[in-house]
Structures are given as C-alpha cells and as structure tokens.
C-alpha cells in the first residue's frame, strides 16, 4: 500500500548541476509507477526527530530502481542532506508511488504541453522518458525556464534528439544568463513564447505545469489567457523552493 513507509537504499547518485543531484534508490518490491507521480521521503535523526518532503519520480522504474532529482535549498532541512550527504549504501524511508492526477499515460494520444520552472522539470522529464521508452506518438512541447546554463538538469539527454524523441520539441528560456550563441536575451518566460512554443488551444492539449509556486501560478494563468481549457491544465506546485526558474 502506498501509505506504508519502506526502506530505500541509495544505489547511485550523479550530479545534475552544482546544486542538484539525481539519486538512484533501490526499493525492494517497487510496484512501478506512472510518469508524474512522486514519493514522500522521510529522514530520521539520531534523536528520533523526523522530517518528510515530497520528491517527484524522475524516470520510469527499472525493476527495483527509481530515481529522484533534488535541488539543494540553502538551509533546508531535507534537501541539503539528499544533495550533499547521502551516499551509496545509505538508507532512507520513502512511501509511494503517490498521486493519481498529475500523471501522463503513454497510451493517451492527446498532445501535451509541458511547462517547467527550475526543478519543476523533474516530473516532466519522467513524462519525456516514459514517452521515449514506450515509443509513444503523442506530440510533446516542452518549455523549460531556468536561470542559467549551469542550472540545466539532464543537459546531455534533454533536447539532444534521442531515439524515440521524434515529436518532442524543447524550448529553453534562460532567465538570468544565456549560453553563447543564444540570441534570446535572458528574461522570464513570456506569454508570447508559451503561445509560440506551446500548442494552440484548438488542438486541446493537456498542459502540465510544474515548479516553484509563483512560477506555476503565472504560467498557468498565461495558459488560461491564451485560451486553454482550465480543466486541461494540471499543476504541481513545489512550494517556494524547488529551485528558482
């Protein structure tokens, strides 16, 4: 049952940016999950104090192995441990998979607009990877708002035309510092860009928006202003944290 806490062992980790990393966790008898679902992570200190936080699953499961990507929040209770301290062999507790609404299924033919701010890319990357693995045909448009090239998650994989990614378009909106050769000046993701790089409301896409609460709020409002049906806009707010877009 999803409500049960179970032991997870850190099987591997790799840096995504100087302040974020992916953890591969081994969870015996993992039942599998849908793209977009999350887990709750619980840490227990030696004195018995516990802290729990939610983290999106970043990829489809491979057997007992699942992945999360965590952005370090300065002075945070949980994320600095997961990004800087947790090592291979360490145990944490998790429960999940959780959530039945912010999910994408590869047999859904409807076109999809994905809008990510900062760490909000994590569950959307799970959708991209699930689509690739299933060789699904649904049209995907991903708009990824991030501060700078150094803050880019999954940089070697995302937007480099992997086999199975036909029909996926990626637009990167740098907000503070753009890499050389990019003519778009660093600025916030604009309504006009969501219009140009998203999909028209007539095609009735499902829209998934994820990131820090303020980012999600403005991106979801922009989609509504462009004429998208609010019932087709699904949001996942990470709270104030989750990495600034």
């Amino acid at each position: 049952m999803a409500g049960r806490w179970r032991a997870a062992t850190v099987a591997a980790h790799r840096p995504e940016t100087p302040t974020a990393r992916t953890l591969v966790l081994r969870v015996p008898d993992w039942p599998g999950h849908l793209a977009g679902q999350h887990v709750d992570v619980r840490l227990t200190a030696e004195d018995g104090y516990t802290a729990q936080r939610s983290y999106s699953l970043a990829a489809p499961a491979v057997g007992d192995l699942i992945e999360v990507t965590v952005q370090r929040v300065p002075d945070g209770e949980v994320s600095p441990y997961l990004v800087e301290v947790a090592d291979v062999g360490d145990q944490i507790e998790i429960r999940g998979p959780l959530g039945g609404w912010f999910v994408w299924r590869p047999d859904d033919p409807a076109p999809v607009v994905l809008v990510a701010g900062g760490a909000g890319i994590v569950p959307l990357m799970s959708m991209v990877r699930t689509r690739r693995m299933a060789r699904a045909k649904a049209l995907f448009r991903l708009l990824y708002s991030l501060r700078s090239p150094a803050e880019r998650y999954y940089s070697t994989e995302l937007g480099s035309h992997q086999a199975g990614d036909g029909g996926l378009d990626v637009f990167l909106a740098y907000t503070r510092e753009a890499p050389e050769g990019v003519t778009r000046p660093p600025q916030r993701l604009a309504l006009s860009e969501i219009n140009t790089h998203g999909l028209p409301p007539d095609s009735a896409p499902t829209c998934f928006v994820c990131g820090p609460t303020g980012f999600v709020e403005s991106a979801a409002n922009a989609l509504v202003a462009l004429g998208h049906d609010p019932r087709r806009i699904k949001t996942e707010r990470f709270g104030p944290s989750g990495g600034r877009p």
Partner: protein
Amino acid sequence: MTTPSVSEPSHLDGNALAGPLSEVFRVDLTGATRRCAVCGITGAFAELRVYAECPGLVVRCPGCDTVVLRLVHEGGVLWLDLGGTGCLRLRVK
C-alpha cells in the same frame, strides 16, 4: 534563506496530500472529483490549495477559500477534520 514575501504565494496543490491521506484512506483521493458544498465549484481534489501551516495541513477550496479539510499528525495521533469536503466522486477498481 528567509520566509517568502507576501507577494509570493506558497500553497501547494492537492497532489501533495496523496502521501498524508494514504495514511488514512486506501484509495487515492487526489484523483477524485469534488463538488464544493459552499460555492458549487466542481474540480479535481488535486486542485485544492494546500497550506502547510504548522503543525499540520490546511486545505482550501480554490473557488471560495472555504477550509475543506485539516490534517494534523502529532506523536502517533492523527487529527482529520473533513468539515468542508463536499461531495466526492471516485473511480474504484
């Protein structure tokens, strides 16, 4: 760093309730459709606004701000106030 400023909204979506509610319910309520008893709005349970206010969670209707539910988990005791839940529609297997 510091607490977010007033202009920065800090609530989460109902999705974040999936874990805490799984301690009580066997089915995932976040996928349910809810009709608000106060304002009549219909929407996904996952669209509710979740405020993490110490020591628990306060969940409000996106239509009228009514407190839909409150959940406090403290020292092995769980308090769940479902006062404003309204009517839920769930798919069951």
